[in-house]
């Protein structure tokens, strides 16, 4: 690092596993202090998670150590290509072919806790990720989903990944998948309406207060709460009226079966599907349908059901 400060350099090549300092720390520090410096991680580790983490930290190239003359030649060509690239090309610095969507996905899939600091001109936005979930975002006076969607609409910028903040208050309850999907969809609609690919303000969908604690349950992607005859609140459900009828019918029929058999209270109904999985339950005259991550196995689905029951006041 002292050498980097002594004179301007174009390229930093670093190992990831070193005796006294973690290569990721070197990369993060160098990226922070010398934003135009090209960075290459060279390692003996072919691990996918390392690769994802390295790219998420903003490096330009991750490569395994070349071990043959051919690999050395290819490596040299990569470095030459990297050094001749224009430094003002579009995209987020460090991952020029990747979008902000890719960045968020990499961090969330790696189950990381981090803060994405994204700048565009004088604007600075931040996205907080905890344990693989997007929990908050901030852009000037905007917070939560509104801020996330505004940042998401940026086409270019610089980013930096800084350590996570465990004390950050959670304001976002969507899973990162549905958040990205919503953001992309709203961006498409906004572009279609304006006929431009601009950074227009996007209005975030609002979630009712009653649904917020239910949305914190891991894996929950959409919710439908039937509060009375013909009354419902939903979040992320495409056709709530139809699913309200289905939920009510299924719960009523199985409740009746349970009463006839004297099988005790109906705790929940779980349905596993190829498009989505759902958990249904009723309590105090209210009926709930929660769509959960379809990749959940039966045990995790049961766990999500129990957690939902707790938040629903059923247990």
């Amino acid at each position: 690092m002292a050498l980097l400060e002594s004179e301007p350099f174009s390229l930093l090549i670093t190992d990831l596993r070193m005796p006294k300092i973690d290569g990721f720390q070197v990369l993060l520090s160098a990226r922070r202090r010398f934003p135009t410096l090209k960075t290459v991680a060279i390692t003996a580790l072919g691990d996918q998670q390392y690769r994802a983490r390295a790219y998420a930290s903003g490096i330009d190239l991750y490569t395994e150590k070349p071990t043959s003359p051919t690999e050395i030649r290819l490596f040299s060509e990569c470095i030459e290509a990297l050094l001749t690239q224009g430094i003002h090309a579009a995209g987020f610095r460090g991952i020029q072919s990747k979008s902000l969507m890719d960045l968020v996905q990499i961090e969330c899939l790696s189950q990381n806790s981090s803060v994405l600091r994204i700048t565009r001109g004088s604007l600075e936005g931040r996205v907080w990720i905890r344990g693989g979930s997007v929990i908050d975002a901030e852009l000037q006076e905007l917070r939560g989903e509104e801020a996330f969607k505004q940042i998401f609409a940026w086409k270019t910028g610089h980013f930096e990944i800084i350590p996570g903040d465990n004390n950050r208050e959670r304001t976002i309850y969507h899973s990162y998948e549905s958040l990205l999907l919503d953001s992309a969809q709203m961006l498409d609609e906004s572009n279609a309406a304006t006929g431009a690919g601009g950074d227009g303000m996007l209005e975030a969908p609002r979630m009712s207060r009653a649904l917020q604690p239910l949305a914190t349950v891991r894996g929950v992607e959409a919710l439908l709460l039937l509060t009375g005859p013909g009354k419902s609140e939903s979040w992320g459900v495409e056709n709530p009226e139809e699913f309200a009828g289905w939920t009510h019918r299924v719960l009523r029929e199985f409740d009746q079966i349970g009463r006839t058999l004297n099988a005790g209270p109906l705790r929940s109904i779980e349905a596993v599907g190829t498009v989505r999985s759902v958990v249904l339950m009723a309590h105090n005259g209210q009926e709930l349908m929660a769509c959960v991550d379809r990749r959940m196995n039966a045990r995790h689905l049961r766990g999500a059901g129990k957690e939902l029951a707790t938040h629903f006041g059923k247990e």
Partner: protein
Amino acid sequence: MNPLSKPKAPVRFPRGSYTVAADGGIVVSTLPRSFPREQMEAIGKAVISALTTARELGTPFKELAADFAGLEIRARDLAGGAIIFVTPQEY
């Protein structure tokens, strides 16, 4: 509900499975005869109805489980029909 009436004693349910056709009719069963047949049919019809209407809404389910305090009913879609597993639970 009469508050003076005695609560019903928990029922001991048998364990077994049976298959139902698309119309809810029972095809074959390993449940003992003590398990009321009309209830087996009611469960079958509820399962088929739930799976069919969900499919019509564009959300096909391959498995559906109703979790009661004393009984679990788990059904798997069988191309229109279903296999239904009945499992007692402690409560």
